[in-house]
């Protein structure tokens, strides 16, 4: 299976036509476009959170005068119902209030900032590590390839979640940066494998041989001839890894080794509400829905990109 870039290179077609063609195919995929729109909207909401919801509502209620009443626009509003539970969804708190009287909607939006940032930087780190290791192993081959490949095998033989928990407990998790580091460290192996396999097949292609015959150095071959052909797999990996990272970050926070409260993350919101899921279901339901919708969107966009960038690839969705 050749990637479209290779096909383009072999036919001598100009490089930009492939991207234009890919964009057309992506646009034709309604589901992928819908996913992309949702993600754009989500990012706007996350960035604009301070303007969308009142800052006071997502912060700890201890800053307010009373635990069961908070001040909103100069009016006092109940956050605890008559039976002593936090209030459920109502006009004032569209998604209800949590156990500390904080607005769940505000926290979901502020949580989006944390979850998206962590997943995005974690993906970037995995990209750097995976690309580096994959290129080295595939291009240099020999002993270095063996060492890298065996190490990748070993890391992949440890269940992802266990590895992440282990790293979190050792690195004294809790800060956003540690979680990013963990996401990067457990995720790069997948990309490393993909890139290594791609490079191993690409380096035998005629155009690489031609470049070498023309006297191109390793650096030039890597950067000018191999890397552009890897953009497709990299973009797809990045998108799908965003989906995976959102899930993994929330799982870590849920297990209490991820982002630590009071910083809201979707996972630790669910963890905080878990014991009360049967009486105050809104505390766990809405952050979970946020995760679900976001991951679905990343998966839709990822699938769309894969179909658009590598039309021959498997799992083509007809929709």
């Amino acid at each position, binding site marked *: 299976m050749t990637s479209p870039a290779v096909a383009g290179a072999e036919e001598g077609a100009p490089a930009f036509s492939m991207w234009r063609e890919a964009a057309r195919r992506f646009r034709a995929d309604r589901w992928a476009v819908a996913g992309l729109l949702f993600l754009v909207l989500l990012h706007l909401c996350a960035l604009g959170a301070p303007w969308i919801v009142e800052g006071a509502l997502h912060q700890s209620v201890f800053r307010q005068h009373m635990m069961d009443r908070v001040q909103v626009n100069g009016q006092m509003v109940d956050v605890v119902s008559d039976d002593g539970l936090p209030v459920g969804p109502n006009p004032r708190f569209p998604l209800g209030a949590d156990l500390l009287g904080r607005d769940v909607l505000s926290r979901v939006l502020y949580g989006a900032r944390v979850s998206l940032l962590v997943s995005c930087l974690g993906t970037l780190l995995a990209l750097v590590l995976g690309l580096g290791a994959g290129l080295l192993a595939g291009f240099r081959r020999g002993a270095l390839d063996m060492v890298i490949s065996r*190490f990748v095998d070993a890391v992949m033989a440890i*269940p992802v979640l*266990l590895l992440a928990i*282990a790293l979190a407990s*050792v690195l004294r998790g809790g800060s956003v940066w540690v979680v990013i580091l963990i996401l990067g460290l457990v995720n790069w192996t997948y990309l490393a494998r993909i890139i290594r396999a791609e490079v191993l097949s690409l380096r035998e292609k005629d155009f690489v041989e031609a470049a070498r015959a023309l006297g191109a150095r390793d650096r030039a071959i890597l950067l000018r001839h191999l890397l552009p052909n890897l953009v497709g797999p990299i973009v797809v990996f990045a998108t799908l890894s965003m989906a995976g990272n959102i899930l993994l970050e929330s799982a870590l926070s849920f297990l209490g080794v991820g982002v630590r409260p009071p910083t809201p993350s979707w996972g630790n919101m669910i963890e905080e509400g878990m014991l009360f899921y049967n009486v105050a279901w809104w505390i766990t339901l809405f952050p*979970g829905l946020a995760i679900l919708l976001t991951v679905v969107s990343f998966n839709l966009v990822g699938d769309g990109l894969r179909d658009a960038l590598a039309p021959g690839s*498997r799992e083509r*969705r007809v*929709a």
Partner: protein
Amino acid sequence: MTLYVVRRLLWSVVVLLIVSATTFVIFFAVPGNPAALIAGKYATRQTVAQIEKRLGLDQPKPVQYLRFVTRAARGDWGFSYVSQQPVLGAIGQAFPKTLSLTAGAVAVWLLIGIPLGILSALKPGSVWDRLGMMFALFGISAPAYWLGLVFLKLFADMLGWFPLGDYTEIGRAGVLSWAHHLVLPWVTLALLYAGWYARMTRAQVMDVAAMDYIRTAHAKGLPYRTVVGKHILRNAMLPLVTMLGMDVAYLFGGAVLTETVYGIPGIGGLAWRAIRMRDLPMVMGTVLFAALFIVAANLIVDLVTLLLDPRIQREG
């Protein structure tokens, strides 16, 4: 051939060694003295030193590691720092629970995922296909622990069809009660995999259905059923078998999230608690136990592929 098998076996051992070394190094960095942890708050320095000596913690780290590996190879996996239980014993107690969870989940996801994938692939673009793939997308995107909470709220709390959490032994409570307690965990865990399997099945069946020999089979007038059953499905299922092997092996290492939400005392929960308590022997035990299955599954998959497809000539 024999040489390849021997080589492949040796590599598996090497991978396991790297796994154990990685785990050891990760926890080697842990600050804090396990001996002090065991001795408790009010222990004298002598007691701590004694415990250190008993556990071999006074030795240099590489010696400690070598000792662990040689003992582990002989079947002595040590004792938990926290509960003083033998590690292998604790794993032996937890494994049947993980096995129960996995076995049921596998059955559920195969029953949902495979037919859904086949149906979608044979009628691409149809209502079935769209609904099926939407379901699959939901399955692979929903966080398992959240799904567990939603199921508990809906089916246990509101409808009262199933018990709230609690695990019962098959020997003690009987098959029906055991299954009744496990239905929600099974479905929760299975939904994720059902999604992946539906997508994989669909892709495989569509790939095979586009092959020339399928067109030939149609052209020579074979009934549709025969073409689908004998020519398409049989070939499309092979990669799924290897995938199943890997996934089952992976789950034998424990499903931390599902086990946590439903309070099932399996391997995943054991490993999680051990990691949080920094109970190094138990961490090593559970991680190696999980890795053992994954490495073995890899090995079996490679060897079976080699047997089935002599074209594959691996350089090892």
